[in-house]
């Protein structure tokens, strides 16, 4: 089982993800934005990051850019409530272009998440 960092600003969605991943046996850390997430991952070095795209302080795309600058090769699953949000910089397509290994549009099924994690960690 893997060590997963969840970055999601919606508290209820974050809690749901943590619970879902823990039930599948993963070790899970969670933060409410990208800045907090970057601080945590520098200490814990997770196997995988599941990040929302649209977040306050540092959004998912900015976090991915920061990871790339720090040359941290941690696989990323990007999740978002809209395939294309109002601002074109905050979408799953940008995340995929920046190297997200998987993208999931909310709401996704538990199996979609499980399959994405399995593909990324293979």
């Amino acid at each position, binding site marked *: 089982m893997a060590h997963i960092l969840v970055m999601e600003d919606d508290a209820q*969605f974050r809690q749901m*993800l943590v619970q*879902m991943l823990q039930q599948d046996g993963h070790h899970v850390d969670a933060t409410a934005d990208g800045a907090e997430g970057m601080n945590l991952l520098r200490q814990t070095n997770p196997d995988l990051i599941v990040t929302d795209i649209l977040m306050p302080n540092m959004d998912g795309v900015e976090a991915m850019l920061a990871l790339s600058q720090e040359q941290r090769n941690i696989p990323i699953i990007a999740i978002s*409530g*809209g*395939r294309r949000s109002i601002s074109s910089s905050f979408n799953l*397509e940008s995340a995929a272009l920046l190297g997200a290994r998987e993208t999931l549009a*909310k709401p*996704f099924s*538990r199996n979609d998440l499980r399959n994405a994690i399995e593909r990324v960690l293979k």
Partner: protein
Amino acid sequence: MATLINDAYYALLKQAVSGGDIEEALTESAELGRKFLRQETPPEEVTEIHHHALQRLAAENPDLRLVQVADRLTAPLMEIIMAYSLAFRQQLEAKYTNLMNARLAQTSRLEALGTLAAGIGHDFNTILGIINGYSEMLSDRLPDGSVEKQNAEQIIEASFRARDLIVRMLAFARQRETDPFMVDIVAIVKSALKMIQVSLPPGITVRFDTELTQVLMMADPSQIHQVVINLCMNAVDATQEWGVIDIRIRRLTETGKENSQGKRFCLEVEDSGCGMPPEVLEHVFDPFFTTKPPGKGSGLGLSVVYGIVSELQGDIDIQSRVGKGTTFSLSFPYEEQTGPSTACC
């Protein structure tokens, strides 16, 4: 009503010609003119009424001399006809200005709703994700075949239905990802009709006719597919049990339009169904507006059509008569093929 007006006109004419007070006749004619305006009688028709009245006057008064009629009537009649034509034109202009303003107001309303849909789409999907996620975790812990598990699965299914609704709202808001390329509209319409044929009630016939063998335009084929299916399903619902739905592709040949906007074609969907009264027509593109029974329609079908057609720089016209049927006419710019076909359907 028409006979009453004809009689009133004849009485006025007789009074004016037979030596009555011409001023009094003119005053009365103003009231008659207002009646014509209320009925939106075109000036040509008024002239015809005048001719009939003259013929009747001549038939009933064989001794009446033409010069007498001309002396008394020519000048005042010219003035009346000119005044009437002016009033009629002003009324027509006012009517079209009101219609235009109403359409503009509707467009602004739809755009505001589209922006709202795009704005809430993201948050709404996150909320659906929470509902779905917890329901799945709950479902996974419940014994297979139990009523509780079935109930949890119903919640999951409903959350995915709500997600599909958001996708349709976003399509309307023109935020949906589109991938336009050169497509053949005739081929897409044929393919959409094949799909519709499968689910058609037995009493309904769908006919397709095209003046053009190939119509090329830049579009996302799934959008055109959706427009045809939404319009046809609407036509099926309006037709109820028995009837005909005609789908036509026509070349538009209005010279003015061609000059200013290039070649345009028209895609028509006509049904012989129940038709729509003006108060329904006014709201037909409003999101969530439906006249179907609860559970039968989301009220988004025609809103989506409106969104897609606007995105493709098309126009929509609707002609509908209660009890007779409805025709949706969509017009778009298109290109004629000059070389070998590379279009995709």
